């Protein structure tokens, strides 16, 4: 990690926190901080990515603004995290994509949709786009050929996975040497990810909008997270059906892909819209406003993915199916492409940070005694 203003501020704040330690019960950040007396750039990147932005330590801080020290750990870490996303981006020159991330993700989305629409029009009889299709196996492929769907999906998603993995590797290396995570550490980290334990302010919830504690954000994030994975599972099942068994989409309402996708889509929609709504009413103090764009763009992209999927399901027997399918696939394509260059990367770095925390769980805090 480079030395930047955000990094210098994070170091200043961590040095104050380390002399205070009042917040050690909130989350994994503070116990990790207590293992250190000096904070390298890599340490700070690790701590920033370990922070789940629950805001507990902001409202609890006796040095929060307007105190002259102006400690605001959630905001500082959010700013630093954004810089780490650019820092670890792979390939390196794509780092700039994080500069105006909101605009870029939105553009990618628009382009994705347009591209698929044009492809659909170009690859098959343009008429197929507007014709009413009966809901029979293969009717989707009349609009977009199966091979085109599969090839694009594999290429874009595959590339994204590689880019994400390289980013994770950059992050892990930058944070300094650590022993290889064992199965216990992996289990702990996985549990932390799946439960979002650290988004619970020590078990009592987050400070969503004020000093009051609530579980709202955690539940909404869960809805989004599990909704996303259900949708992903739906896509994978459909892929397997199509390639291995030769069963052609669309599938029956009671089929596994449709059931997974519908439940997942609804959850994803509830989660993303809810989280977006929360941003509107949040206390702006502990948030880094200039990063709102990236946040909102990703939420919108995910919400669109869910919404267009559900719309497609509703319209698949009508003349609007062609357009609905093309738009939905356009959104999915954008999501695949934008994945490693959107706020989505927070999942990867945070998981890596939790894993790192789990590997150092038995180390003793430094300091007195």
């Amino acid at each position, binding site marked *: 990690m480079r030395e930047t203003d955000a990094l210098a501020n994070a170091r200043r704040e961590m040095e104050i926190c380390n002399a205070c330690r009042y917040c*050690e019960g909130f989350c994994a950040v503070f116990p990790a901080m207590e293992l250190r007396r000096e904070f390298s750039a890599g340490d700070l990147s690790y701590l920033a990515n370990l922070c789940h932005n629950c805001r507990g330590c902001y409202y609890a801080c006796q040095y929060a603004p307007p105190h002259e020290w102006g400690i605001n750990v959630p905001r500082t870490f959010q700013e630093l995290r954004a810089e780490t996303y650019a820092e670890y981006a792979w390939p390196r020159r794509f780092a700039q994509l994080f500069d105006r991330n909101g605009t870029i993700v939105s553009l990618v989305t628009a382009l994705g949709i347009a591209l698929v629409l044009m492809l659909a029009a170009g690859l098959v009889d343009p008429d197929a786009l507007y014709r009413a299709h009966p809901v029979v196996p293969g009717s989707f492929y009349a609009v977009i050929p199966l091979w085109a769907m599969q090839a694009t999906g594999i290429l874009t998603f595959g590339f994204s996975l590689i880019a994400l993995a390289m980013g994770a590797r950059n992050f892990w290396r930058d944070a300094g040497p650590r022993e290889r995570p064992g199965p216990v550490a992996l289990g702990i980290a996985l549990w932390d990810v799946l439960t979002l334990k650290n988004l619970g302010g020590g078990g*009592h919830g987050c400070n969503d909008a004020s000093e009051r504690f609530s579980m709202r954000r955690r539940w909404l994030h869960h809805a989004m997270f599990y909704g996303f994975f259900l949708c992903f599972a739906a896509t994978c099942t459909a892929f397997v059906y199509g390639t291995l068994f030769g069963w052609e989409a669309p599938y029956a309402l009671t089929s596994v892909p449709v059931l997974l996708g519908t439940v997942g889509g609804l959850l994803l929609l509830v989660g993303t819209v809810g989280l977006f709504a929360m941003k509107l009413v949040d206390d702006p103090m502990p948030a880094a406003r200039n990063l709102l764009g990236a946040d909102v763009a990703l939420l919108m992209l995910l919400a669109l993915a869910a919404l267009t999927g559900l719309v497609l399901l509703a319209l698949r027997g009508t003349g609007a199916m062609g357009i609905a399918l093309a738009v939905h696939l356009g959104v999915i394509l954008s999501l695949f492409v934008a994945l490693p260059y959107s706020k989505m990367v927070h999942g990867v770095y945070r998981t890596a940070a939790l894993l790192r925390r789990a590997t150092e769980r038995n180390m003793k805090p430094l300091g007195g005694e």
Partner: protein
Amino acid sequence: MPDRTKTYDVLIAGGGNAALCAAITARQAGASVILLESAPRAFRGGNSRHTRNLRAMHDKPNDVLTDAYPEDEYWDDLLRVTGGNTDEALARMTIRASSGVFGWMQANGVRFQPSLTGTLNLGRTNAFFLGGGKALVNAYYVTAERLGIEILYDTEVLSLNLDDGAVRSVDITYRGFPETLHARCVVAASGGFQANLDWMRQNWGDAVDNFVIRGTPYNRGRVLKNLLDQGVASIGDPTQCHAVALDARAPKFDGGITTRLDSVPFSIVVNQLGERFYDEGEDVWPKRYAIWGRLIAQQPEQIAYSICDAKAFPLFMPSVYPAIKADTLAELAAKLKLDPDKVQATVAAYNAAVVPGQSFDNTKLDGNRTKGLTPDKTNWARTIDKPPFYGYPLRPGITFTYLGVRVNERAQVLMENGQPAGNLYASGEIMAGNILGRGYLAGFGMTIGTVFGRIAGQEAARHARN
């Protein structure tokens, strides 16, 4: 807006732990309550927002405390730190009541850290607030708002107008504008007077200019002085305050816990002349840190310097300001603006006097001492010779003052004639001197405020509703 025409059941002067406990208790007992806090909302909560834990008696482990801390041990600890300067009946009542506060605190929003974590070895005697004192204060304010307690910030109580042993009216300034309010009962919970530098100057002279006030700038003792001027009985030594050694670079007010320095037992401490002046290794730090404020206050310019080497540096809690670091002692002395020759001579004399041979153990009194120095260092004495060398400037940091109003076990304020005032109660730092006449027991301030806050709230509500 305060309602001038209304007679509130209970008016609370102050906005820290003691005030909030009283306000919530009174409201839960059915009283109409108004709470007046002189600080703006962002700085509400007085010194309570700087606290971390509370000391509670318990007979068996619970979800926040390990082992047991029985009444007699608690009482012995209190007797030891106060040197008997306490009221046994009030003290024992407080100690006993401390075992029952958790349920009430949790029901009103306070969260505790599970026992065992933390670098301080207080998991047995002290319960740690999750997020510290400001989180506790926030939780109480949320509860107070929910219960319909009227809360006014930027509102200073100027005078509780006593007539014939009862408060008849209350003069305040609300956002700078004078008002007079009426209440059937009043609870004084406005802390000590340590932030009132003019008052402090009466006892300490211009040395106060070199003091650091660890907590809120709003505890100026206005209510305390007003009451004492009207014939309320005082308690506690008016000239004394709890003073610890702090990093001299601390802000004048509100630096809180982070400016504390735990380096003393593992260093030598010299004054501005480069001379040692007290046994740095007299006892374990938690038992000694509170005498160092006074010791430094007695040195020229109220400043001292803790000096150690690379061996000692990892042994204490990191302080908020970076240590001043140098490869030689002369260089370090120069950086600290001390006479390098003098510092080198002091360290040389100290190094020569260290008795070798014992094994070093930072966790107990290890008997590693010097011989033949005045004063000697009697524990953890090791030569200072391994570069780099580290130094910290130290100043006296004032936690609170001891002077307060005298109360009885019902939290009623007593007049000089020994009679309780008719409708005036006190809780927290403003009456802590009744129990803690001297010294300090970590976590006892919040215990006193919680226990007496609840008693005051209960009694005031009952009196007002009758």
